């Protein structure tokens, strides 16, 4: 019988076991002892209860969760991880949804919560003294387009425009929306845009700042920029009235 085929016996005595022991010679069935080797004796239970364990979960003090939330330095995360997570989020939403419209609404809802929370975080990071509450529509939009966008997506949005037709409609345009950078919509999905998630983020942030609005994402590709997306922000009519009462 070659050496490889021998079943390694358990350790002679349980007390000799240490954390450095290889599992093959650790607790196990000892053929020379028979079923007796599996019974729990005071000795073995003592070892089992008091043994040192090695945690396999990486909990280094450097992880993003361990850092102070009030940290000015930009914490970057991996785009691939984000993309895979978002990909699964879209898949999960897709499974639960009844149609394309429903899918967009659900993605918007997911983003809405992110927006609400992120606004809180960004205001905290700005500091109590230097931060102020925006009260004008144009100011809050500049904040979203600039500071907010930069801290959540790492760059400012490309354009900020006001609609010619309706006084309560504004547009933020991003040439490459971060979350849908790798997503291409199949033809049979019509004009679905996964950036509805980002629209939800904007909507959440605006609603939290008492600028009630509806935000939708629309693809508007131009030559060389296939992913160009327009976020159409439609404010409540009453907001426009409020604004005119306050500042005129």
């Amino acid at each position, binding site marked *: 019988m070659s*050496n*490889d085929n021998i079943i390694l016996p358990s350790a002679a005595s349980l007390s000799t076991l240490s954390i450095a022991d290889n599992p093959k010679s650790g607790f196990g069935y000892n053929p020379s002892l028979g079923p007796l080797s599996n019974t729990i004796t005071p000795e073995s239970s003592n070892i089992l209860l008091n043994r040192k364990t090695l945690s396999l979960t990486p909990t280094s003090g450097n992880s993003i969760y361990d850092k102070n939330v009030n940290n000015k330095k930009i914490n970057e995360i991996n785009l691939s991880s984000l993309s895979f997570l*978002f990909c699964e989020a879209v898949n999960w939403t*897709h499974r639960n949804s009844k149609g394309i419209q429903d899918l967009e609404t659900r993605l918007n809802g997911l983003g809405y919560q992110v927006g609400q929370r992120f606004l809180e975080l960004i205001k905290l990071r700005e500091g109590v003294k230097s931060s102020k509450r925006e009260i004008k529509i144009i100011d809050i939009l500049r904040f979203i387009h600039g500071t907010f966008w930069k801290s959540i997506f790492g760059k400012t949005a490309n354009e900020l425009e006001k609609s010619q037709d309706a006084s309560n409609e504004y547009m933020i345009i991003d040439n490459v929306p971060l979350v849908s950078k*790798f*997503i*291409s919509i199949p033809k049979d999905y019509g004009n679905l845009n996964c950036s509805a998630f980002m629209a939800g983020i904007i909507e959440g942030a605006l609603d939290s700042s008492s600028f009630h609005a509806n935000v939708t994402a629309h693809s508007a590709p131009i030559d060389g920029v296939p992913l160009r997306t327009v976020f159409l922000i439609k404010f409540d009519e009453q907001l426009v009235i409020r604004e005119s009462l306050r500042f005129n």
Partner: protein
Amino acid sequence: MKLYSIYILNKAGGLIYQNNLDPSLNRLTANDYLVLAGTLHGVHAIAAKLTPTIVGKDSTSTTSGTDPTANNALLLSTGKVQNSNTNKTGLGSIETDLFNLYVFQSLTGIKFILITSPNPILQKQHEQASETFRHLYVLYSDYVMKDPFYSLDMPIKSQLFDLKVGELAALV
């Protein structure tokens, strides 16, 4: 080196992507492309079984099965399943006067196949092919695997991927 066309095969040998990058190529029927892909898959698998004759081989270097103990020891010490005399990579390239064909298989079993013009600089052709494969693999991981509307081992229909492959071909 000029790219003629790109094929991507799934791990079962099914054609999941085909792009003729040179517009002057004659198009085959969809069925012919599938047959071609299946044949290449088969040839690749057969080539992986071919080993050059080992001169003066001794008992330790024989293939697995004859001596399990030695094989086990090798497996434990090196982590490699086969010994170094086995051709693990399968068909790597075919070079002719009219075209060159390169095959790259990823660890997950996806095969990328490039058909190119013959390269005038002989030393450089493999370098260039592997560079192209690297870029192609990156594009595949980015624009195919991160697309929530793509299901594994199914034909790739992503327009973004098409676009990026076109850009890659223009660069080569």
